[in-house]
């Protein structure tokens, strides 16, 4: 396996597949993580990037198609388009009419899904690793990359499905509604302020022509990454991919520039009412983008803050002061500056302001540094998380696609531990002082309706 992933062998593989497919495949890069796991990247003339990771631990194929388009690319007055388009992508083309994709995937036992967030959209299938399955996947995926057809009836019924998804995840979900309001408040100009699922009003006004235009703008081979991980043969996979996608034409992609969110200089806070019995409190701080070295520093800090019963926030809020029944923290992995969110499920009688004060106090203490025991906990915990993510082909395919689609470097998946190494106590303290400033904070509180 390791010899197969040598640059020479992969160049030869690309040459061989090029001869068989009559498409000029370019080998670009490979990364060997350990003797049995590694990945490589190739490129077709139309700009489509192919990330291949042979993994013969199980006879499974994880196939993913990533597009570098998400809700940040939408018109702020027509939100929800990227996500709705993701739903529509399962509907049909001239070659494969409505329902055929789902039916064919299910007949083959494929586990099929898709997801959209602020920076990206991806489609995933996991199924038995056979040549026929691979060829079928490529046929369907290459076809729908440019061949989607939308009729009015399908458009309308699927829009109802998405409206119901919004009702479930936002309108009738106190935590979902609070999260949406937090992003709307924390961001003033950057499109991260818009909900990926779309506002109810924008969904109501969704137009087929505009969705089609969005699709034609962003769904193109030169805006996509295909990941094939699992029990694959590199030459065979490259050949089939080139045959399937090689004829698609590259498109001129729009130059994308997103408004830069101005530095927050004063804390923001709001309170909303909902059908809850216990208060929910969110503290959100503007945080570095995923590729910033400071993001890795915050990941270390987050292990100490929020992972395990002895984590600082859990111990303070749940155990010692009895203010909350649970507390969690999320550092969102966004391409532009994201948020560090602390989410507290307060106890029924807890004072939300006391919760905010206790969280902020714990965050302030971070500037004094972590103990040796906490550093050790973070190092071991992050190492375990990395291995856990590598446990199967599907687990590997997603970060490979995420890093390649967003940052042009799939190998970032394997080098996570290196990003944590060398962070000094001062590095961590500096990042905490910068991020966890009160002026950088948005607080959202949900309280019981009628009180």
């Amino acid at each position, binding site marked *: 396996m390791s010899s197969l992933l040598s640059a020479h062998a992969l160049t030869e593989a690309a040459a061989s597949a090029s001869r068989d497919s009559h498409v000029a495949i370019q080998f670009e890069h490979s990364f060997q993580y350990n003797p049995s796991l590694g990945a490589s990247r190739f490129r077709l003339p139309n700009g489509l990037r192919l990330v291949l990771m042979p993994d013969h631990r199980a006879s499974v194929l994880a196939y993913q198609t990533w597009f570098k388009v998400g809700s940040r690319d939408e018109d702020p007055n027509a939100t929800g388009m990227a996500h709705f388009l993701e739903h529509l992508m399962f509907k049909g083309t001239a070659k494969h009419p409505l329902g055929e994709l789902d039916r064919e995937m299910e007949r083959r036992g494929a586990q099929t899904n898709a997801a959209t967030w602020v920076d990206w959209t991806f489609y995933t299938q996991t199924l038995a690793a056979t040549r026929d399955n691979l060829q079928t996947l490529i046929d369907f995926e290459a076809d729908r990359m440019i061949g989607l057809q939308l009729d009015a009836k399908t458009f309308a019924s699927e829009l109802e499905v998405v409206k119901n998804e919004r009702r479930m995840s936002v309108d009738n979900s106190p935590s979902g509604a609070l999260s949406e309001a937090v992003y709307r408040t924390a961001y003033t100009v950057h499109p991260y302020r818009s909900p990926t699922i779309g506002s109810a009003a924008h969904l109501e006004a969704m137009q087929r022509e505009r969705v089609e235009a969005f699709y034609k703008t962003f769904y193109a081979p030169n805006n996509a990454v295909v990941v094939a991980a699992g029990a694959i043969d590199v030459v065979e996979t490259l050949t089939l991919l080139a045959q399937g996608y090689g004829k698609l034409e590259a498109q001129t992609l729009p130059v994308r520039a997103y408004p830069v969110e101005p530095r927050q200089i004063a804390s923001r806070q709001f309170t909303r009412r909902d059908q809850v019995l216990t208060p929910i409190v969110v503290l959100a701080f503007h945080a570095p983008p995923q590729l910033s070295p400071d993001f890795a520093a915050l990941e270390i800090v987050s292990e100490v803050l929020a992972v395990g019963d002895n984590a600082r926030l859990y111990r303070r809020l749940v155990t010692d002061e009895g203010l909350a*029944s649970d507390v969690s923290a999320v550092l969102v992995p966004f391409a532009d500056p994201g948020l560090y969110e602390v989410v507290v499920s307060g106890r029924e009688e807890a004072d939300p302001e006391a919760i905010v004060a206790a969280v902020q106090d714990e965050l302030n203490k971070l500037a004094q540094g972590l103990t040796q025991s906490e550093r050790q906990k973070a190092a071991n915990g992050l190492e375990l998380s990395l291995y856990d993510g590598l446990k199967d082909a599907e687990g590997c395919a997603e970060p490979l696609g995420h890093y390649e689609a967003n940052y042009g470097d799939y190998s970032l998946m394997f080098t996570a531990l290196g990003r944590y190494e060398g962070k000094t106590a001062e590095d961590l303290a500096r990042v905490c002082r910068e991020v966890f400033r009160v002026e950088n904070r948005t607080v959202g509180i949900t309280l019981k309706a009628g009180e």
Partner: protein
Amino acid sequence: MSTPHPLAIARRQVDGATLLVIEDHSLPIVRFVVTLCPGTLADPVGQSGLTRTLMELTLRGTEARDRYVFNAALEELGSHLSSAASMEIALYRGISLKRHLPQTLALLSEAMATPALAPDEIEGLLEEMIEGLKGDRDDDDTVAELFLRKALYRNTLLARSPQGEVPELARLTRDALKQAHQSRFVKSGLVLALAGDITPDEATALTRELLAPLPTEAAIPKLVPTRPESAPLEILVVDKPERTQVQLRVGLHGLPGHHPDVMALWLGSMAFGGTFTSPLTHEVRDVRGWSYTAHAGFDRLSRLPAPMVLRTAPASHDAVACLALELELLQGLGERGLGPETIDFARSYVLNRYPLEIATATDLLMGALRYELLGRPPEAVFEVPALVSAQSVGQVNQVLAAHLGQAHRTVVMVGTASELLGPLKERFPTAKVASVDFREGLGL
């Protein structure tokens, strides 16, 4: 014949406990599960939540070290250890770097054998659990599952939440917890499963050490709950103000995992509502756009009779029509069954998908364990494709008719009652329609 599975399940008896080991040396990590049977079904009447509380308490300090020292030792290793309890089993599950596995299991052993059950920890945990149960009512999906259980299993042990009922939790005593610990934490009742970078011999040695401090007495006898009497269609509206959507559940009593008809019922339920293209999903979601989720599920490995449950979430204005459609589809399922094409399609889906569900050591871990807990050899996990292949279309439809055709339908709708009750009574005039407040049972 299909090729043998590349991963083997080693099964050993170790000091009265059962050990399953699945080797996978591709990464230096090990997952483990330690189970006690039964789970919360063993909670005495009036003491629901006892097992769940006890499991969590064992991880909150031992006789040798308090909660913080215990957690610090565990967390410094980077290991994760948690507990859970369902009706059938109570379990610990964890994951550890291979190099830290002995220390991690030693900590688990200490927790199981000598928990402090400190009064202040008991008090604090019970308060947390009660607050957590209140918080659960903020999530409509969770509320729907909670009330479906109550509606399906009225007045039986199964109606109780595995997390415990609030008034009963509030009355749990340290003596009850100590007594439960003495009777539950014995070697002979345990099943352990480890998967990852470990050999059966290494696992055996570590298991022996883990079990050493535990007594050997037999586990407590199994309790067999009774199924409530059948009744006509019952619709329970769980009232929550200002909902624009309804979490809708339709439950039918199904079968336990050891029943000879279980595989046919599972295949039938899969064909009916287990895939994106199944009739239920197609009619509710694709044709009408009524719900984002539209699914029928049935657990074929349950030791207790598991229900088949239809889960949808229509907008409030579509909810009654959606329920009517689901009941109509169910009636057709019982009366006419499913066409051969539908059943064979589901069979193809299951047969092609199943190998993926047991592909890795991690995947295999819970599957093998559940067969073991069902009283079957863990290798039965590999026999599923043959059993699915053996179910004829006629058999599947016969089983659907026999077990679902006359089964009473229990409906739970979490939504705003004032918008639902009138239309429900009009649409289903013979049904028993009732309404409860979503906070019922919290003692508020």
